[in-house]
């Protein structure tokens, strides 16, 4: 792919979304000598995107925020890609860039809702960078634990996590109250957490 062409044909990555062409000026990418650099960047970014999303998802309150942060950090990484040592670990470098972008993004988020303070967010992100393998194991365990749940409970959990769903409306439809709905969700979430923690511990011990 020619550098610059992705402004009109945004790349689509596994986790969804484009590589953020709408924020990139064409002049930044329109030099033929950028081709190899661009392709190297896209290859590395695509390879590590899921891991990077799990990293960001462990210190941001929602996956909408993760999407937003990924847009910002992908752009920042591309702009700083000249500074990346090709022999170094891309994911470690990407985590550092994303951590700094998260702090900047936090200032925007903090205006209207509960987001972690800067000192807390910084600490969370710093430690999260050391837990990338753990996140992957937990994700596998979650899917396994959900499958092991009775269907009715699984359906309830998945329904509660439907994007845009209003808990109050769900509760009313079910002839229940929001408080009762949240209580049940809390119980099931804790059950899932116990299952995930037990499974990841078992996996670790088996290794």
């Amino acid at each position: 792919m020619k550098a610059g062409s992705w402004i009109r044909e945004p790349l689509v990555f596994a986790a969804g979304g484009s590589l953020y062409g709408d924020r990139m000026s064409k002049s930044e990418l329109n030099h033929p000598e950028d081709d190899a650099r661009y392709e190297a960047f896209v290859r590395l970014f695509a390879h590590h995107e899921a891991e990077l999303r799990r990293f960001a998802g462990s210190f941001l309150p929602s996956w909408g925020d993760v999407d937003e942060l990924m847009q910002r950090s992908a752009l920042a990484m591309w702009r700083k890609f000249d500074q990346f040592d090709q022999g170094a670990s891309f994911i470690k470098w990407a985590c550092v860039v994303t951590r700094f972008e998260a702090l900047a993004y936090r200032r925007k988020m903090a205006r209207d809702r509960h987001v972690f303070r800067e000192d807390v967010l910084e600490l969370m992100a710093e430690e999260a960078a050391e837990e990338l393998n753990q996140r992957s194991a937990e994700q596998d365990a979650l899917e396994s634990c959900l499958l092991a749940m009775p269907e009715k409970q699984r359906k309830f959990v998945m329904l509660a996590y439907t994007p845009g769903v209003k808990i109050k409306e769900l509760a009313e439809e079910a002839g229940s109250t929001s408080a009762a709905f949240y209580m049940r969700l809390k119980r099931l979430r804790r059950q899932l957490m116990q299952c995930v923690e037990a499974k990841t511990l078992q996996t670790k011990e088996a290794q």
Partner: protein
Amino acid sequence: MNEARFEDLPEEEQEWIDAFLNGGIDDDSFAKLQDRMLERPELRTVMRRCLALHGRRSRLRRASPLCSACCS
């Protein structure tokens, strides 16, 4: 895996996490939660796990066969 587990946290911290994940934490509890997070690495570890799984469930709802099998 870090050995910190949700069920080993004090009940108060568990409640704060639940309220945070539900989007219903009050300002006072949120301030206390963050103060505690600065002090306690175990709480930070569990919070990261909770947030990651919380987000993952939302993603699964959109994309997984787990959903087409049970949520249609």
